């Protein structure tokens, strides 16, 4: 591709498990903008078994809407020929056919195995299991587990360079004994990436070379104090293209159409989150809640982490959310009574008919209650994996010496969190945007000042792959067309009795308008502030409450507006002040809904009894 030539038009598709989404980005008055989108059912499965049919259909929708032509018999027409025919760049991501499924292995569970897990997750994989010498299972149990799983590939690590080779060879012998088979391609050898102690390579080759499709890359923990995930991630992407994609129906054709390699969808979303965090210089949490899985991405302390909760989702895995959280935890977000047996049947029916949508207010509130629990569990999972390197020596100053924190503490610091970006049907398509804001506040419980946003039509995957070629275009579209800013939440940390003072907030808009609110503990308030506006905020927490500068200390900050505005969340933190008494809880939920205008109260009233 010519680096100097400015791209005029970019076509990008994301082939999801159920839907293939196409977007057209064009240079409009010198700025890249989303100009059109189309979608069609994905066609990886029988009877079609050719992913390009779905891609063609989705692109065709754009062609029809725009009155232009982007494809011919041989594929996508590149570069753009004139204003009617062709595009300059075609890209695609894919999670169809179950995405990328991996198993990882390392010598020590908390060290090399954890690093391998981070590398696989960061590359966009679902990690089916983590095998380690010290994972508590007996060798035969590990072998049985490896035999049961049919991953797309295995990433194996262990040992620092020049360290002992015995343990990592033991791991290789376990894998060799299991004779693992790949998920796709019955006659193919399973790809294994070795990213461990360089000294052990010849032994690993002798043990696994003949039985598997073995690849060697640089050690992902060359020394204890450093994690180098890049080479392993790159090899995962190469294998994803060569092996997984090449086996899936129609992908060889799709690969020949795209100008850059196809990326796994979550890998592309992660790339976009990383780009946003670095360009905006802030800590970001991104979440994508799907039907089967919930992905959480974060950038804290310049470290990117991704986790996937493979069995937390809103359709295929919805029963698992009920199983993990318990019906009572779902019901605590619901302001009316419903028979437990009825609720369980409804959740099961959503599982078996995943494409249905809530028609009544009652169904909507139940679905959003389940989403809160799925998001909460996924975030807990993320916090437990997004940690600093364990087992390393750290230098502490005298103040830190008294904090008694161990290595491997979670990197997620809610007070430092700058922005939460939500995506996935339940967040992106909530009938009122404030419902998405409330779901994210309830499940992530951010502290201090936090911007909230949603991905309007879930185009982060396409923008992620675009950012690998043209970060400028990706960023421009992300800011102008992808992100819908909901606003900023102000949430003091602390607890008190209901009605006690919590925080007073004074906001001065750019036009000089001053808005003041005094919030008591247990209340929520909404101050409208438009999407393109920022304002100066002065927040004075009451004694015992902290907004980031210590208890009772005033904080000055710039707040961003949004389609919702500025939310003062004075429900307290540590824990969130949700009453345990049912009637009190219902009263509070309704009070918060009213304060934020989250639901039409005349309709909700029908179900409140």
């Amino acid at each position, binding site marked *: 591709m010519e680096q100097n030539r400015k791209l005029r038009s970019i076509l990008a598709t994301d082939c999801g*498990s159920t839907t293939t989404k196409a977007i057209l980005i064009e240079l409009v008055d010198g700025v890249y903008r989303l100009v059109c989108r189309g979608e069609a*059912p994905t066609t*990886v*499965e029988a*009877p079609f078994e050719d992913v390009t049919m779905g891609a063609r259909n989705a692109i065709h929708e754009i062609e029809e809407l725009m009155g232009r032509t982007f494809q011919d018999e041989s594929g996508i027409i590149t570069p753009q020929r004139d204003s009617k025919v062709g595009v300059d760049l075609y890209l695609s991501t894919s999670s*169809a*056919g*179950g995405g990328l499924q991996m198993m990882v292995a390392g010598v020590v569970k908390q060290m090399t195995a954890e690093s391998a897990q981070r590398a696989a997750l960061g590359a966009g994989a679902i990690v089916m299991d983590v095998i380690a010498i010290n994972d508590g299972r007996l*060798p*035969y149990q590990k*072998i*049985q587990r490896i*035999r049961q799983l049919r991953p797309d590939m295995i990433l194996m690590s262990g040992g620092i360079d020049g360290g002992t*080779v*015995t343990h990592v*060879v*033991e791991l290789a*012998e376990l894998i*060799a*004994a*299991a*004779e693992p*088979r790949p998920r796709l391609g*019955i*006659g193919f050898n399973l790809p294994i990436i070795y990213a461990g102690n360089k000294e052990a390579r010849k*032994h690993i080759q002798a*043990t696994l070379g003949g039985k598997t499709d073995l690849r060697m890359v640089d050690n992902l923990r060359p020394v204890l104090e450093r994690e180098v995930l890049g080479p392993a991630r790159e090899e995962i992407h190469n294998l994803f293209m060569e092996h997984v994609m090449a086996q899936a129906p129609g992908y060889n054709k799709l690969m020949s159409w795209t100008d850059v390699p196809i990326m796994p969808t979550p890998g592309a979303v992660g790339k976009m989150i990383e780009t946003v965090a670095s360009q905006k210089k802030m800590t970001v949490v991104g979440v994508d809640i799907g*039907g*089967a899985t919930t992905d959480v991405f974060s950038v804290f302390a310049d470290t990117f982490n991704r986790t996937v909760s493979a*069995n937390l989702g809103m*359709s*295929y*895995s919805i*029963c*698992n959310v009920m*199983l993990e959280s318990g019906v009572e935890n779902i019901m605590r977000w619901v302001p009316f009574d419903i028979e437990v*047996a*009825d609720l*369980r*049947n*409804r959740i*099961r*029916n959503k*599982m*078996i*008919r*995943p*494409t*249905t*949508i*809530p*028609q*009544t*207010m009652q*169904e*909507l509130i139940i679905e959003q209650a389940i989403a809160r629990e799925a998001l909460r569990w996924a975030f807990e999972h993320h916090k437990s994996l997004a940690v600093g390197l364990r087992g390393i020596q750290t230098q502490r100053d005298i103040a830190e010496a008294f904090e008694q924190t161990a290595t491997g503490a979670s990197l997620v610091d809610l007070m430092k969190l700058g922005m939460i970006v939500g995506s996935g049907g339940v967040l992106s398509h909530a*009938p009122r945007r404030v419902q998405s804001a409330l779901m994210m506040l309830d499940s992530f419980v951010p502290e201090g000042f936090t911007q909230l946003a949603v991905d309007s039509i879930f185009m982060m995957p396409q923008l992620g792959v675009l950012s690998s070629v043209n970060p400028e275009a990706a960023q421009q579209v992300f800011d102008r067309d992808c992100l819908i800013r909901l606003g900023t939440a102000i949430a003091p940390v602390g607890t008190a009795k209901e009605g006690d003072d919590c925080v007073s907030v004074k906001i001065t808009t750019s036009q000089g308008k001053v808005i003041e609110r005094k919030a008591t503990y247990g209340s929520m308030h909404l101050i409208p502030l438009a999407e393109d506006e920022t304002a100066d905020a002065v927040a004075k927490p009451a004694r015992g409450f902290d907004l980031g500068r210590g208890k009772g200390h005033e904080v000055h900050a710039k707040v961003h507006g949004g389609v919702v505005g500025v939310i003062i969340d004075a429900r307290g933190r540590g824990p969130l002040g949700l009453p345990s008494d049912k009637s009190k809880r219902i009263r509070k939920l309704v009070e918060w809904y009213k304060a934020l205008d989250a*639901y*039409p109260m005349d*309709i909700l009233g029908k179900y409140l009894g």
Partner: protein
Amino acid sequence: MANAYTPGLLVTESVIVRKRRRLPIPGEVMVKVGDVVRPHDVVARTQIPGDPETVNIANQLGLEGEEVLEVMKKKKGDPVKKGEVIAEKVSFFGLFKTPVHSPIDGTVDNVSGVTGVITLRRPAVPVSILAYIHGTVSEILPREGVVIETPAALIQGIFGVGGETQGVLEVVAKTNAEILNSDKIKPEHKGKIVVGGSLVTADALKKAAQVGAAGLVAGGIIDKDLIEYLGHDIGVAITGAEDIPITVVLTEGFGQINMADKTFALLTSLNGQVASINGATQIRAGVMRPEIVVTSEDMRQSAERDMTSGMEAGTPIRIIREPYFGKLATVHSLPPELHVIETGAKVRILTAKLASGEIVTIPRANVELIEG
């Protein structure tokens, strides 16, 4: 977005059913194109490598990894018997011998001079793939399996548990609303597939297992009854491998829901015929629904599956979400514009005429076609 509706489950008296029968790893195909096969016929087979067993010789004999090679009595590829000496350490000029015995019958798969661990492998396990349906072999997948096809009546359910099995269909409900309780299950239902109406009860499940019925088919089941019967909860929608004696196929969903008239009428017309059923359900990539297949003897009735052409006024539908969940209706109108529903969402809707004659508004995503 003209096709923004859920394709229905196929319920038809005549269609060409094709089943791909594949081995988990390459092996030998036992039939040829044109062969007529019965459900229990083996169509392909293979040998799955036996389970490995590791023995840490270095630990047991107090040796370094590389020293193990010197004490081995068996080498890679050698067969071993349980109790046979596989390694032996000799000390004090041969006075003391410390042997290591094989814990299993098998072969030596690997001897590691690095870790001092050896891997023994049990004998290979033969695996056979059965035809599952009565039909004709239409395609050979070299070393992998076959495709079998047959004209058949096919009923796809919405959810099921339990794997592939066969039996004679016996419809015990007089109407599609009748509950399948334990009173309706008799000893003579051993080996049969018992068909009820709106609901299968927990007692009926237990009784069916007691009498040795092969399967149960009904409109719905109460969530808690199924979980109790299985002995574990269902987290994700992937079933078929449960360790249960009967296969259950639900045609409508969870709760008490009348079986669709068409489904009930077709099953009633097939009463007494042999069916192949499978409860396996997977709602994700590669959607798989449970099924009841009854091979038709009359080839003339067969037809290729007609890919759904869409919905129009009069098309029979099933409503698949509250507040009209489980109700059958016909499409009354298909307004093209978006419509604001109670939740406040703007969606594409249709109006449907319920059996009572009432006209109701439903999001198009919440109906499915009754196909066939």
